[in-house]
């Protein structure tokens, strides 16, 4: 075990020790653990047949009952089962889109901070452009052109939500590059790649992690909004898509609150949980520096 690994392991243990005492952060973490468990177990506990429209057993818009704890949708399917499956889709889209967003954001941020000259200016310009352009109209035109599918949804959200991260990482990179050890590694002959991946990246990484947690929250909200507007896969019942079908089949005017309330509560809980964890991580890191 190298010295650096040992040091990182100790830092991680110290971080966890502090996180454990952050009540809001721990509450968020427990909520997340529950939803992740549901997402993993959904296909084991629920047979795909129970989501098949042609084999649905319930009536249209049944209120909650023992057989259907959260009532039924317009096709007589159990909303509870739809929600459990939706957890899987919403979390998958949320995490995948965040991954794309973080990779682009971190790469652009580090490069814009490391290099000088026209290339760096261009990167900052592109970042600023994405920061200014209103998210939803941009996402709508991109998603319309690409067509409705889960993969396209992930791509659209990923490429519209990285700019904030890039700006943050660039600022952090600039402050790290001013430290003497970067100069030392330059003097020893390190090339750009080595400096960026071996010296800058490990230093911005904690910030990337805290930022990721907050980004997932925003990305899941974006996914819900875009799916509600009908820009996701119509056959994949993410939480936003469930709200879309509730809205377009007239559940609102029927007063079928059991169709609308639960998906929204799931979204609020997950987004809130990610936000709480992210804020707790930020608090701990700020306290340390």
């Amino acid at each position, binding site marked *: 075990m190298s010295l650096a690994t040992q040091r990182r392991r100790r830092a991680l243990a110290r971080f966890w020790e502090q996180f454990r005492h952050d009540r809001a952060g721990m509450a968020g973490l427990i909520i997340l653990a529950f939803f992740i468990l549901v997402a993993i177990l959904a296909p084991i506990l629920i047979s795909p047949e129970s989501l098949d429209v042609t084999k649905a057993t319930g009536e249209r818009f049944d209120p909650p009952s023992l057989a259907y704890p959260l009532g039924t949708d317009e096709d007589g399917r159990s909303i509870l089962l739809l929600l459990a499956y939706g957890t899987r889709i919403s979390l998958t889209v949320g995490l995948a889109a965040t991954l794309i967003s973080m990779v682009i954001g971190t790469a652009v941020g580090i490069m814009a901070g490391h290099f000088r000259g026209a290339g760096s200016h261009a990167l900052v310009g592109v970042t*600023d*452009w994405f920061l*200014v*352009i*209103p*998210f*939803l*109209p*941009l996402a*709508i*035109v*991109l998603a*319309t*052109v*690409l067509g409705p599918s889960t993969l396209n949804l992930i791509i659209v959200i990923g490429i519209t939500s990285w700019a904030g991260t890039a700006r943050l990482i660039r600022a952090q990179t600039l402050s790290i590059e001013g430290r003497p050890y970067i100069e030392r590694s330059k003097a020893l002959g390190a090339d750009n790649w080595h400096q960026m991946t071996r010296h800058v990246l490990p230093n911005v990484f904690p910030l990337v992690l805290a930022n990721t947690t907050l980004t997932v*929250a925003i990305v899941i*909200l974006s996914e*819900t*909004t875009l799916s*509600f*507007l*009908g*820009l996701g896969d119509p056959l994949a019942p993410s939480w*936003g898509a469930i*709200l879309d079908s*509730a*809205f377009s089949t007239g559940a*609102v*005017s*029927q*007063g*079928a*609150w059991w169709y*609308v*309330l639960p*998906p*929204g509560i799931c*979204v*609020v809980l997950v*987004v*809130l949980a990610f*936000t*709480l964890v992210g804020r707790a991580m930020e608090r701990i890191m700020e306290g340390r520096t």
Partner: protein
Amino acid sequence: MSLLQEVAVGEPDPIRPRRVTGPTARIVAGKILRAVVTLAFVVVFNFFLFRLLPGDPIGLYTRGRNMDPEQIAALREELNRPIWEQFFAYIRNPFDPGIDSTRFSQPVWELIGERVWPTVLLLGTAIVIATIVGIWIGIRAGWKPGSRFDKVSTGTTLTLYSMPEFWLGMMLLIVLGVGAFGLPGFFPVGGIASPGVDTSTPAGWLNVLWHMFLPCLTLTLIYLADYSLVMRASLIDERKSEYLMLARAKGLRDVMVRKRHAVPNALLPTITLIFLSLGFVVTGAITVETVFSWPGLGLLTYEALRGPDIPLLQATFLLFSIAVIGANLIAELLYVVIDPRVRQ
């Protein structure tokens, strides 16, 4: 001695004439130029996005609709022109009154003109109320962080912040519009006025206000969550400043320290952020107008994307971008005017 020297350095050279364009004018010009360049990229992006993608653009334009073979032939003719010719035709005037909507068979800018005022009315009201209430909550919570009020309000605003705004709208609509949980439905379930009501009379205005209540409440709650969190954070930052300690050391009462010193300084970043958050406001407008069938630009965007009606979608995207870029520019200029540190 050293103090005197510093003053001497800052003194303008009496021999040279003062330049007419100070740093302020240069900064302002630079910011305006940047906004124009940003907008130019929107126009270019808007044009190429729908043409450079693989696949048949005719299919995209006509998806889910029956069209005359004649119309399709005309469209194909149009798209078969050299790309640079089309490009110059578009950038010469993106607001060309000849651009027709494919769904409403009406020029897109005429359609947009009809829909602007309902959106301005709804968003304007929601933003003003949300700003006032949000800042008030932010001040109370941020001045005594950790207090009971702070805990309750931050918990509530964080929850509101995590909500999809259209879902809050749907729930309010079910409970207060349609009626659920034993409550009778009191508010109208959609639209801007009851059918047959003349909106130019005082009774008509009341009818519009009554229709506006629920969508406006939804947007206000969502926006004020954002604004109060920003104000709270800004005031907490300000509390650490040394000039507050000085104000207290002078013997100023806590209320006066807050009102005279902390709040004015904390307001500056908050007001700027309110302008900068117009992109977020637009998101709310699109989904909430859809839920309440409020006949504004947001509902128009939804109708355009459900078509899809590409020319209309391009036009609304351009319009929203102009609005947001404009608001950003105002925020930056405001900062230059109010905060002397930016000018240095």
